[in-house]
């Protein structure tokens, strides 16, 4: 197990390096003015422009720009065009909220996805299962922004559920529990919207894997032992099928964050998706480079964790 972790770690470092290259060059190489203001704006003196160029190393050759920008990123020298605060700081401020959102989303996806997937495999072919499959496809095809709006309207007007931001302001909560409950509500709705696609994807994937697993000989052995069908499914079949699901969490992450850009916008949730949208609006290139890098690095970390988890669940993986 240890050597497996070390191998994966080494691979991750290589990927991290490539990620940093991609994040930098995607923003830098894209044709377009590096200045947040218009090229021909007469109000900006040549001196201001020169200072700008110096600050962002724009007068150096590309590979030096890359190295310097990366250093700046980690030392906190890379500053946002918007408010001149270190970019890393701005990102770190949003990190807890983003983590809360993504982790919740993943948990929702995994739990419901697994339940649905096992049920779909068990009753495969029946009309209930086919209808269920159809519903999961709808989840996948649903545009996030559309369902967010519809959900927002229904929840707020009909149920009075608070949804914007992370907590309701201006309210005195009778006790900490009530306050946490309020936070939970604010978190749950965007997390659920984001999780829909994940639930659908996981359940379909698990269904397909389980159907294959159910044909294996050891399932027949398990039944011949007189075990209840639930035990056969959840203990014997699932553990063998869960491995691709867990490593699939890594696949979920980029999609989650992609979806978060829109969902955080709609629900005014102060996460990194929203930061990205704001940075794009303001043409805040340093923030964009840093954000792309950090987000991809987080996904990489997520992949690493899910690979280690899947090795823990299925002993056969450790030999790879």
């Amino acid at each position, binding site marked *: 197990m240890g050597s497996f972790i070390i191998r994966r770690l080494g691979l991750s470092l290589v990927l991290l390096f490539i990620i940093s290259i991609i994040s930098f060059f995607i923003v830098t190489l894209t044709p377009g003015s590096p200045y947040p203001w218009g090229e021909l704006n007469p109000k900006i003196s040549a001196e201001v422009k020169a200072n700008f160029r110096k600050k962002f190393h724009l007068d150096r050759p590309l590979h030096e720009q890359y190295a310097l920008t990366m250093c700046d990123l980690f030392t906190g020298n890379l500053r946002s065009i918007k408010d001149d605060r270190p970019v890393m700081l701005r990102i770190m401020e949003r990190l807890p909220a983003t983590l809360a959102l993504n982790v919740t989303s993943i948990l929702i996806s995994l739990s419901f996805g697994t339940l649905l997937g096992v049920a779909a495999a068990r009753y495969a072919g029946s009309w209930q299962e086919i209808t269920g499959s159809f519903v999961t496809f709808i989840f996948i095809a649903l545009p996030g922004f559309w369902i967010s709006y519809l959900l927002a309207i229904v929840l707020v007007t009909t149920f009075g559920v608070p949804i914007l931001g992370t907590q309701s302001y201006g309210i005195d909560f009778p006790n900490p529990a009530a306050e946490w409950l309020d936070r939970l509500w604010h978190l749950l709705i965007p997390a659920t919207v984001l999780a829909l696609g994940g639930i659908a994807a996981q359940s379909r994937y698990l269904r397909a894997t389980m159907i294959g697993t159910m044909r294996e000989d*050891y399932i*027949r*052995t398990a039944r011949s032992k*007189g075990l209840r069908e639930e035990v056969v499914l959840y203990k*014997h079949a699932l*553990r063998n099928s869960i491995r691709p699901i867990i490593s699939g969490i890594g696949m979920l992450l980029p999609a989650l964050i992609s979806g978060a850009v829109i969902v955080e916008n709609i629900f005014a949730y102060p996460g990194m998706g929203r930061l990205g949208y704001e940075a794009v609006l303001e043409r805040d290139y340093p923030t964009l480079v840093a954000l792309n890098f950090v987000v991809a690095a987080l996904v990489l970390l997520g992949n690493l964790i899910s690979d280690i988890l899947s090795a823990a669940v299925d002993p056969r993986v450790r030999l790879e």
Partner: protein
Amino acid sequence: MLKIEHLQLGFTSPTDGAITPALKGVSLELAKGETLAIVGESGSGKSVTALAITRLLPTPPAVYQGGRILFEGHDMLTATDAELRKIRGGRIAYVFQEPSTSLNPVYTIRSQIAEMITLHRPDVTDIDGEIIRWLDAVGIIDPKGRLHAYPHQLSGGMQQRVMIAMALSARPDLLIADEPTTALDVTIQKQILDKLRELQRDLGMAVLLITHNFAIIKGLARHVAVMYRGEVVEYGETEQVLRNPVHPYTKALIACIPRLGDHRRRLPTIGEL
């Protein structure tokens, strides 16, 4: 103890729903503590018969079309799921052909055998000790060290011994062994079969042995049923059948067994006889 009367079974084709008959009226009997061998070629329906006894065949595509299966007074074809589950493992246990795929690869052999024991013999307190005793009984060296091994860490012969230990650990009345040695080396085959005979004697349980190999049943099974294309074509005491086969198919099967001191240059095939 076990009585199969005119069992008819077929399989529905997934594309057009037509039913292909697999068992066309199979009748067998097995008394307590005895061994019955079912011999036949691939496709004769012997494995299907074995699985049908406890309704282990998934019912689409399998379809029970007629007949009765009586086990110690239980009508297996009308038994409820709960009754079936008690019988499976607890009264009738199975050993399958491919030990490498019949054991769950993600659980240790200890946990798989323990599952059997806790399910059917809840009164056993020292589960580890019980498992070690059974592993020892099937001939596994250093059973204590092997407790926490995963199936893929064992050789084929050992895996099959583990399967037998697992099947027997619930102390069933009937052990159904479906081609238990076919997937193993010839040298291991004899060891496993001898062990099986020894265990049956010690435990006093009945054994239903399925095989395509006529040669191994001598000394092992008192009675034999020869199956061909979904029907039992010959049935009787093994000694009798071997000496005086009646059905042409049986004669052909026996004639195909290679014998020591055989001077034939070319072994016969069923089709020729």
